């Protein structure tokens, strides 16, 4: 099918992204035209990317065919450098998510960034954004470690420039700096891991990678470095500090790209390196990833719920979702190491499925927050309200995204959360007792974080979109432009489709879990390849047949019942006109906007219940002579970010102290001392040269 194969389409896609960047710069004298051209070319590139990944995923005649070798489909080699670009099932799935998301984000960007044209250097921004997308596409398809690393670092640096778009705001610059520091740290860890691998194997090719050649100590070091490097990128607790600052500081379209797909490069990296290339050899790798995932899920969602800034809420919720994905990957790695490919396949499938879903609904939600900001210039939930009437179309879409991320049927988030739960149950039933207990805790953590995520989005939608507008800006908001609604609608529709037909994704991705049959766990597909490296232990039994999920009848039943109920009620009760009256407020007359439950109030009880995590403080200041009738009341409440306070602050203080002392010791101000340094350096250099040459 198609007049071109996935290979040409892939190169067309990359060329179009590059063309978008070039054209934006070439037309920079006419910023509006440059902006439009860049976005249209990006959309075309994304469409080509969709075509390429779909053609690749659909290429097999039937899902029961033999699994492909993991890095079979060579798309191409860059001349001169020998840098291979490779598509396989794993790459293609992430490339598909990237392409669909970019399609929507580019469409969204057309009206979203238009107000900046002329005021800011929009063409450069558009060019950087297109290159950022190009870098991510290369991260997902690099077949060569050097290319992977270069794309990885390019992605980090380009996104930094996108984050500091509004560089006149101090907060934004500070957030960008923190992001850059953490990104450099992560890049350095990744570089160290790759160099260690190279020193042991002598090859940069991902295809020739053979973990068997790694000495155990090196392997341990590589695993720890990789988990830390990908942990920084994924925003896993305690390496998450940059995420809740950088994502909100960036413009809405960039936040959507960063949260929607850039975080997934860490998911891809973990799977590619630890599972595929290194073959998940030891159980503790997975346990480490699982533990980090569970911690991130709880801490992320807890902070999301108490957050009042809409975009920060979304950012913290990304940490939670990355936690869920890491939980699945961790179980997959452990089960693989313990010799239970069935559980491993289910867990890895669940993780990839959730990552795929999250790209769409979180992308949609961030775009939604961007549209709200576009209309009201506000992100604080405490200043919004009533948008369901002023922005009705956007509200419906945001509600859809909220349902999806709250793992509620019939959206994709539910299907992937359900799959993750099934994987955990399968692992708990099949695993050794110690693992079973850990996985039981994981089930509870998933339950808690799922319900708290729902609470967080109830707060986001309930406070931000329902009730009365709390500020004039919210009251006078106008509906988001059609292009924005279309873009968000595309992502929400994708999420809905994934929820209605999860089996389609399972077949498409070649990760084959049969959702409809009663106990079937089809594992004969491409992923078995990833487990052939793993030594078989007797640790895990084959999992029992689990439940099936066929969401369509459930949804049909829900819709039918709801419709029937509405009709029946009208038939039985007769024609009753709806009367409109002001909200009940104990007979005092109509309550005003300030009497509504506030954003902080909604999560206050949670803050108190989980006070060990937040250490909340509160202060009530009353002004005026009378205690009971003060002239004004001021209420402030704060909570502590524990990780920052007890991990990063001491660390930063320590580094400051150390560098102060080092400076005092080294930089004495004496000229003779400095001359001695020069001489010492020269001698050391010569000695090294001689010794290295001799060796």
């Amino acid at each position: 099918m198609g007049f071109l194969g996935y290979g040409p389409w892939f190169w067309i896609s990359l060329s179009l992204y590059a063309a978008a960047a070039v054209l934006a710069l070439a037309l920079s004298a006419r910023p509006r035209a440059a902006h439009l051209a860049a976005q249209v070319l990006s959309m075309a590139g994304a469409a080509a990317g969709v075509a390429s990944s779909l053609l690749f995923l659909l290429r097999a005649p039937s899902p029961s065919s033999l699994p492909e070798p993991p890095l079979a489909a060579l798309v191409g080699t860059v001349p001169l450098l020998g840098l291979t670009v490779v598509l396989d099932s794993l790459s293609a799935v992430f490339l598909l998510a990237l392409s669909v998301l970019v399609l929507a984000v580019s469409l969204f960007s057309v009206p979203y960034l238009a107000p900046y044209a002329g005021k800011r250097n929009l063409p450069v921004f558009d060019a950087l954004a297109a290159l950022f997308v190009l870098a991510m596409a290369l991260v997902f398809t690099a077949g060569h470690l050097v290319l992977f690393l270069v794309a990885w670092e390019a992605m980090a640096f380009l996104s930094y420039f996108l984050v500091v778009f509004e560089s006149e705001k101090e907060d934004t610059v500070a957030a960008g700096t923190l992001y850059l520091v953490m990104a450099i740290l992560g890049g350095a860890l990744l570089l160290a891991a790759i160099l260690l691998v190279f020193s042991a194997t002598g090859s940069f090719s991902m295809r020739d990678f053979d973990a068997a050649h790694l000495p155990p100590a090196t392997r341990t070091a590589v695993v720890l470095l990789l988990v830390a490097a990908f942990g920084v990128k994924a925003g896993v607790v305690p390496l998450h500090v940059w995420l809740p600052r950088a994502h909100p500081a960036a413009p809405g379209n960039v936040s959507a790209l960063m949260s929607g797909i850039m975080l997934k490069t860490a998911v891809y990296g973990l799977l590619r390196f630890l599972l595929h290339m290194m073959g998940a050899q030891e159980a503790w790798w997975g346990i480490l990833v699982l533990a980090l995932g569970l911690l991130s899920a709880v801490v992320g969602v807890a902070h999301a719920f108490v957050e009042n800034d809409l975009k920060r809420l979304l950012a913290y919720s990304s940490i939670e979702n990355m936690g869920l994905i890491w939980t699945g990957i961790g179980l997959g790695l452990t089960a693989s190491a313990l010799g239970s490919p069935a559980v491993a396949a289910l867990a890895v499938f669940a993780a990839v499925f959730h990552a795929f879903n999250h790209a769409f609904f979180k992308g949609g939600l961030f775009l939604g927050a961007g549209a709200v900001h576009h209309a009201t210039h506000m992100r604080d939930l405490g200043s919004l309200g009533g948008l369901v009437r002023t922005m009705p179309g956007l509200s419906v879409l945001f509600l859809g995204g909220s349902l999806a991320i709250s793992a509620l049927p019939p959206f994709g988030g539910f299907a992937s959360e359900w799959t993750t739960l099934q994987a955990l149950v399968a692992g708990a039933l099949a695993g050794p007792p110690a693992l079973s207990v850990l996985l039981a805790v994981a089930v509870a953590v998933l339950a808690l974080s799922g319900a708290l995520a729902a609470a967080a989005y109830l707060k986001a939608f309930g406070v931000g979109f329902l009730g009365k507008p709390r500020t004039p800006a919210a009251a006078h908001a106008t509906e988001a432009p059609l292009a924005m609604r279309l873009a968000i609608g595309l992502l929400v529709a994708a999420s809905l489709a994934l929820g209605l037909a999860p089996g389609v994704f399972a077949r498409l991705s070649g990760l084959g879990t049969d959702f409809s049959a009663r106990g079937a766990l089809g594992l004969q597909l491409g992923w078995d390849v990833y487990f052939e490296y793993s030594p078989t232990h007797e640790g895990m039994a084959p999992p029992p047949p689990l439940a099936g999920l066929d969401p369509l009848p459930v949804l049909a039943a829900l819709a039918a019942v709801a419709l029937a109920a509405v009709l029946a009620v009208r038939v039985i009760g007769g024609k009753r006109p709806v009367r409109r009256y002001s909200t009940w407020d104990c007979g005092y007359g109509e309550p005003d906007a300030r009497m509504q439950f506030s954003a902080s109030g909604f999560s206050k009880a949670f803050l108190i219940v989980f006070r060990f995590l937040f250490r909340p403080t509160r202060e009530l200041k009353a002004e005026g002579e009378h205690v009971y009738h003060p002239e004004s009341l001021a209420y402030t409440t704060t909570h502590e970010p524990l990780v920052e306070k007890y991990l990063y602050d001491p660390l930063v203080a320590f580094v400051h102290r150390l560098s102060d002392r080092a400076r005092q010791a080294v930089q004495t101000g004496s000229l003779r001392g400095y001359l001695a340094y020069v001489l010492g350096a020269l001698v050391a250099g010569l000695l090294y040269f001689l010794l290295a040459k001799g060796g």
Partner: protein
Amino acid sequence: MRALLHPALAALLALLLSPLPTGLIRKVKALVQKRRGAPLLQLYRDLRKLLRKDPVVSTTSSWVLRAAPAVVFATSLVACSLVPVTVRALPDGVPGDLFLFFFVLALGRFFLVLSGMDAGSSFGGMGSSREALISALVEPAAFTGILAIAAYARSTSFAAALAALNGLGGDPLLPQAGAPTGWAPSALFLLPVFLAFVLVLVAETSRIPVDDPATHLELTMVHEAMILEDSGRHLALLEYGAALKQWALLGLLASLFLPFDPFLGVAGAAGLALSVAFFAAKVLLLSLLVGVLEAATVKLRFFSVPNLAALAFVLALVGFLQYAVTGIGR
């Protein structure tokens, strides 16, 4: 088509009988307090009355407030239809699994909480905020309880759970006539799980000690605060939906933890009718228990609810740990 028969039967039964447990619970409470109490069928009358009243809708509210009752009703009824009423359903296939059951109920709750915030009232927001927290706190208990059942049934599906807990082993096929039913000896391990689910039921149905369905004191109410702005047919659907949700959760307990059916030997439609009636009797018996529980305890301080949720979670975890440690059913 036969596969749809039992869900339809379960839904019909719930539609007809779900207001009854509420009446029964209220009656038990009244009798314990030496009152005569409202008639058993009071909720039926309330529903009829509400349907014939003009609904009043806040000027602040949106389509969310008007859509929520239908969603709550639909999710509750679909949840009811997922709970198998008799093991006779097994050969035709019992759809769904326990996680799905709770996720469907969560969808209804999502809209209920939103509708509480739609009118911009402080009461509604307060009730919504509390409901969101309480449901988050009991969710771990419910899911860990499902894991414990799955450990026993080797699956989270209703079919497997029903078969295993009815002493039919892991084989979700109806036994031949006269096969042993009732508790398998090892089912005693599930006692803590049962207790955990009772606590989940209490929290999910807004009953004492978590919430007081009888109060309209603003400071203490949770569920009632959320539906304060609803009236007429909207309120009718919400009340009906709440009764259905209660029926679904009671039915879950009856179906899984009280696996008795003396009429399994009776063949044909008469046998089916007797089995279904016996299921209804079990649900009503459980509602008596809830009534006694409600009469015998006092409402907890809101900030003590986490302790109750923790207790439920520990009970469910103990239920699973017995499996992990002793390897029952392995």
